[in-house]
C-alpha cells in the first residue's frame, strides 16, 4: 500500500495506461490479484488529497474552529478580557430584565415557530395535492425564501403599521371587526351647547338634563356627527316607540337637517337616526338597564324598575372607533415577528414535506383505504407515520434556524428590548453598544450549546446512512 502511495500521479497514470485498456471494467473472477494491484495503483496518494482539502481546511480552521475555541475561553473572562470570572457571564445571561426577556422570547420562538411552520407546511403540502395549480401555489408560498430577512422585515413593518389607514393588517382587522360588531362610533359628536337643552355633556358621556320616569320617552339629539362615521345602514330618525310601564324608550339621532330648516330637538324628516349607540339607564350611580339603538335611532330600555332614571350615552360611543391591534406593542411583538417568520419559512417546510408525500408508496394508502379507513384515518395512521422522518428533519432544521434568528427581530423589532432574542442580544452585548465581549461570548457559546443536539442528530443520521 505504502509503496504505491509514493508513486507520483504521473507514474501511476503511466502505469495504468500500460495495462491493456479494455480489461479495465471486465475483470473476471480469475484475475483478482492483478486487478487489486491495479486499483491500488490508481488510488491517488494521501498528500494529494490533503492538497485538495487544504483551502477548505485552512478557512474552516481559522474562521470557524479556532473562533469556537476562542469564544469558549473568552466567555470565562470579564468585559475587558483581563480577569477570569468563571461562569459569571453565563449567570449574567439569566439576570437583568432585558436578558430575561430575550431568554423567554428565545424559548417562545424555539417552541412555537418550528411547530407552527411544520404544521402549516404539512397542511399546505397535503392540500396542494388536491388542486390543479399546485405548482403555482408552491411557487408563491416558497418565494419569500429567496428574499432577505431585511426586505421581509421592511415588508412586515409596513404590514404591521399601527394606523389602520396605513397598515394592511389593522385595516383588515378593522374591516372585519366593523362588519361583525357594527362598529358604530361617533367621535366628536355631542349635545347642542347652551342651557335648556334636553341633553348635556358630562365627562365624556352624554346624559339627559332631566331625569326620566319609567313609562316615558327620552329624546337624545346629537350634533357634530361626522358624515363618514355615519353607518350606511342608518335610517331616518323615528319617533320613540311607546313605552310600557317599567320601560324607557327614546331616539338618538343626528339633529341636523340638510339644507337647514327643521325643528331643533325633534326628529324631523330628513334627519338620520344614529344606530349602534349604547344607551344606559342610570339610577344614582348604578346602571340599571342598557340598550343599543336600532337603525332608525330608537331604543327601548326594559326593566328599569321604579323611580326616575338618567339616560346616559357612555363615553365609548364618542371615543375613536376600533383601531386594530397593537402588533408591535410589547405583548404582540414576538407573535407578530413569528408570523412574519412563518411567511418566510412555510414554503421550506411545504416543499420538503411535499417531496416526502410524493415518496410515500401509493400501495400503502390504497391498502388502508381498502381496509375501510376514512381519509382522516389514512392521513393520521398511515401518512403521518410514514412522513415522520421528514417531519423530524424539518423540525430540527427549523429549530437550528430559529435559534439563529437575528435580522427579522432586529428589523421588525427595531431595537425594542421586548422583542429581543438571544441571537440579537449577543450582537447587542458585543457590538451594539453593550461592549461586553465576555457576555457576548457567553451568549454565543450558549447558542452553540443549544444547537449541539441538532449537530449530534445530523451525525447520527449520517452514520446510519453510511451503514
Amino acid at each position, binding site marked *: 500500500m505504502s509503496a504505491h502511495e509514493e508513486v507520483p500521479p504521473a507514474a501511476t*497514470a503511466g502505469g*495504468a*495506461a500500460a495495462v491493456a485498456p479494455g480489461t*479495465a*471494467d471486465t475483470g473476471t473472477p480469475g484475475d483478482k490479484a492483478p486487478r487489486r494491484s491495479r486499483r491500488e495503483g*490508481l*488510488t*491517488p496518494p*494521501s498528500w494529494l*488529497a*490533503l492538497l*485538495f*482539502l487544504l483551502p*477548505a*481546511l485552512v*478557512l*474552516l480552521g*481559522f*474562521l*470557524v474552529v*479556532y*473562533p469556537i475555541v476562542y*469564544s469558549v475561553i473568552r466567555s470565562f473572562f470579564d468585559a475587558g478580557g483581563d480577569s477570569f470570572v468563571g461562569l459569571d457571564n453565563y449567570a449574567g445571561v439569566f439576570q437583568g430584565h432585558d436578558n430575561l426577556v430575550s431568554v423567554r422570547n428565545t424559548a417562545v420562538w424555539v417552541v412555537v415557530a418550528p411547530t407552527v411552520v411544520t404544521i402549516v407546511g404539512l397542511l*399546505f403540502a397535503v392540500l396542494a395535492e*388536491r388542486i390543479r395549480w399546485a405548482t403555482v*401555489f408552491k411557487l408563491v408560498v*416558497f*418565494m419569500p*425564501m*429567496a*428574499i*432577505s*430577512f*431585511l*426586505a421581509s422585515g*421592511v*415588508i412586515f413593518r*409596513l404590514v404591521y403599521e399601527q394606523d389602520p*389607514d*396605513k397598515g394592511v393588517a389593522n385595516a383588515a382587522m378593522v374591516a372585519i371587526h366593523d362588519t361583525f360588531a357594527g362598529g358604530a362610533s361617533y367621535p366628536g359628536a355631542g349635545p347642542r351647547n347652551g342651557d335648556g337643552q334636553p341633553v348635556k355633556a358630562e365627562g365624556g358621556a352624554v346624559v339627559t338634563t332631566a331625569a326620566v320616569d319609567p313609562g316615558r320617552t327620552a329624546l337624545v339629539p346629537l350634533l357634530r356627527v361626522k358624515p363618514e362615521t355615519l353607518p350606511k345602514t342608518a335610517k331616518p330618525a323615528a319617533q320613540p316607540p311607546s313605552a310600557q310601564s317599567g320601560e324607557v324608550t327614546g331616539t338618538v339621532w343626528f339633529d341636523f337637517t340638510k339644507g337647514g330648516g327643521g325643528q331643533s330637538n325633534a326628529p324631523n324628516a330628513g334627519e338620520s337616526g344614529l344606530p349602534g349607540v349604547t344607551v344606559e339607564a342610570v339610577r344614582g350611580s348604578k346602571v340599571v338597564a342598557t340598550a343599543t339603538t336600532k337603525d332608525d335611532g330608537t331604543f327601548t330600555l326594559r326593566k328599569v324598575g321604579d323611580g326616575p332614571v338618567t339616560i346616559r350615552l357612555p363615553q365609548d360611543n364618542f371615543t375613536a372607533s376600533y383601531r386594530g391591534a397593537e402588533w408591535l406593542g410589547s405583548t404582540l411583538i414576538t407573535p407578530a415577528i413569528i408570523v412574519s417568520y412563518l411567511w418566510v419559512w412555510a414554503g421550506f417546510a411545504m*416543499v*420538503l414535506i411535499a*417531496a416526502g408525500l410524493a415518496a410515500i408508496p401509493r400501495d400503502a394508502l390504497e391498502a388502508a*383505504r381498502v*381496509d*375501510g379507513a376514512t381519509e382522516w384515518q389514512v392521513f393520521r395512521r398511515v401518512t403521518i407515520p410514514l412522513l415522520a422522518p421528514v417531519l423530524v*428533519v424539518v423540525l430540527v432544521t427549523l429549530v437550528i434556524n430559529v435559534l*439563529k434568528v437575528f435580522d427579522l427581530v*432586529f*428589523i421588525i423589532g*427595531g431595537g425594542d428590548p421586548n422583542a429581543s432574542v438571544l441571537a440579537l442580544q449577543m450582537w447587542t452585548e*458585543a*457590538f451594539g453598544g453593550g461592549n461586553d*465581549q465576555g457576555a457576548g*461570548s457567553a*451568549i454565543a457559546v450558549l447558542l*452553540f450549546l443549544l444547537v449541539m443536539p*441538532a*449537530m449530534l442528530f445530523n*451525525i447520527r443520521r449520517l452514520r446510519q446512512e453510511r451503514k
Partner: protein
Amino acid sequence: MSTADRTDTVEPAERDDDGANGNGAAGSPRRGFAARATARLGGGLAQALLALVALFWLVPTLGLLVASLRSNADNNAGGWWQVFTKPSQLSFSSYSALLDKPDFVDSFWNTILITVPTTVLVVVIASLAAYAFAWMEFPGRDWLFLLVVALLVVPVQVALLPVAKLYGKIDFGGFQMFGSIAGVVLFHVAFGLPFAIFLLRNFFAAIPRDLLEAARMDGGSEWTIFRRVIFPLGGPAIASLGIFQFLWVWNDLLVSLVFAGTDSQPMTKWLQSQMRQFTGNIDILAPGAFLSLIIPLVVFFAFQRYFVQGVLAGSVK
C-alpha cells in the same frame, strides 16, 4: 367488523370508476355519489383555502412594491391600497431619487462584489474538498468528514467576536482586513463551506465508480479528472449550491453589520442604517428593499428547479 370490511372493500374501486366514466358506481349509486360529492366539496374547499393563502402570501410583497411607487406624503397619508382608486399616485420618483444617492449605488456594487466572489470561491473550494472526501483516500477521512457535518449547524454568532479580533490584527501595507470586502467574503466562504462540502460530497459519491476509474486509467491526473469529469457531472448539484450561496450572501445582514465598513457595506447594511426613521424614510426603504429583493427573486424564478433540489438534498438526504 368483517361485514364493514366487505362493503368498504368495493369503495375505492367504485371511486376510481367514478373518476373514469361516471357510472361505475351503478351497484351502489348513493355511496358513489356521496364519495364523489365529498371529494368535490373537499377539492372546492381546498381550492378556496389555498387561494386565500396565496393571497396572504402575495399581499405583503405587493404592498412593498406599491409603497415604493408612491411618494412619502402619500404613504404617510394612507395605505398603499389607495392606488386602486388613485392610480395617479404611482411614479418612479422614489427610485430615481434613490439611484441618485451615491451611498446606495456604492452599496449595490458592494453587494455584488461580496456575493459573486463568495459564490465562486465556495463552489471551487468545496468541490475540491468534496472530491477528496468522495474519491480519494487518506488517513482520518471519515473523521474529518464528520467534523464538517458537525460544523453544519454552528451559529455565526460564535465566530463574530474572535474573527473581528483576528481581522483587526491583519494589516499589511495599509490594507486592513477588518472593514474590507475581502474580510466579509472570507467569513462568508468559511461559513458556507460545511454545507457546500456536505452537499457536493453526497452528489460526487453517487458518480459511478467505473467512470472515474476509466478516467484514471486513461492517464488523467487528479486535477484533470476533477476539472473534466467531476465538475461537469456535478453540474446540477453545483448549480443548486451556487444559487443557495448567492442568495445567502446577497441576503445577509449580520455578517456585514459586523465586518463591513462604510466603504464596503452591502445594500442590506446601508438600508439598515436608514431604518431609524421608518415612516420618514419609506421613500428610501421601500424602493431599496424592493431593489434588494428583485435580484434574488429573478434568480429564484429562473433557477427554482435547482433551488428546490438544493433544499431537498441539503436536508432530507
